[in-house]
């Protein structure tokens, strides 16, 4: 990451350099924040589909719980997105 900012920094004044670093940081912040929740949501939905396929009569209950699980998992990615907005734009 330092190498990238070093490349970007060549021929820029201090303000531009700061903005470039912030933009790079923002990109990394969102990318990293999306990894965990991505895996997590995939897991939650996959298991929910498995449960619904095994017991279609419980689908309504499973769906409600699935949305709850998604909502909690997704919050982390969204905080990453907010950081991305705060840093980068």
């Amino acid at each position: 990451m330092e190498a990238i900012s070093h490349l970007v920094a060549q021929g820029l004044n201090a303000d531009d350099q700061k903005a470039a670093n912030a933009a790079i940081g923002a990109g990394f912040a969102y990318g990293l924040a999306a990894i965990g929740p991505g895996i997590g949501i995939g897991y939650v939905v996959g298991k929910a589909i498995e449960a619904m396929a095994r017991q279609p009569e419980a689908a309504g209950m499973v769906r409600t719980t699935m949305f709850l699980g998604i909502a909690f998992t997704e919050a982390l990615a969204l905080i990453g997105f907010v950081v991305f907005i705060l840093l980068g734009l």
Partner: protein
Amino acid sequence: MLGLEFPNINEVIRWQNIFGSFNKIALIACLAAVIGSLIFILGNAKDPMKAPKGVRNLAETIVDFVDDTVMGTIGKEGLVWTPWLIALFVFVYLCNLPGIIPFFQMPATARMALPLFLAVIVWVVYNAVGFRHQKAGYLGHMLWPPGVPVAMKPLVGLIEFVSNIILRPFSLAIRLFANMLAGHMLLVTFALLSEALFQAKTSKFALVPMGILPMFMLIFLTAFEVLVGFLQAYIFLILTCVYIGQARQGHGDEHHDEPAHAAAH
């Protein structure tokens, strides 16, 4: 160097004042409140003995939907909260919807003020419900799930306090706000990209039809936003129900094992 210049965030989400400090966000929020109320006032004016149609049909569908959600999360005792939850759900949904309506093109919940305010209302309500139903025991039940070893109590209490009192309203607000803002930004990005590619001049003739591709993505994302707007209102509703349900009965069913609490129920 770049093909298109992405506008500053303030240009994307900040709107001019129509009069005073009343801008488009406030207009959408007011319209959502008025339209939401009108659906139920007009629906209620119809004769309940006849088969429902039109506005009344819509109102009954919404009531049924929220009723089912409440029954699934709080249980039968939670039905007293249905009117309030319907107002919350309809308001959030009608604030999300303008994100895809032409000329509005902005979800009112994509600004932090509205989700934060709603989350604070929910926070006050579920804490009040907790104190009303469990009296002073609410704090103890909230901080320590049954069966926590004494040595772990300070740590667990701290974690539960932070997660229940501070993080809950914060994450409730952030979830709604960031989802709607992300959707809005995606739509802006692809709209700008379509425009830039339509106007781009290239020497390779084969690249010209490619300009249509972001347009398809824009249409797809607009359809996706219809889903997201509803889903976020639904998730806001479910989470509110779950928080109220937890505040009513402490930590789920474990309490029924303890004789002291079983007597109280």
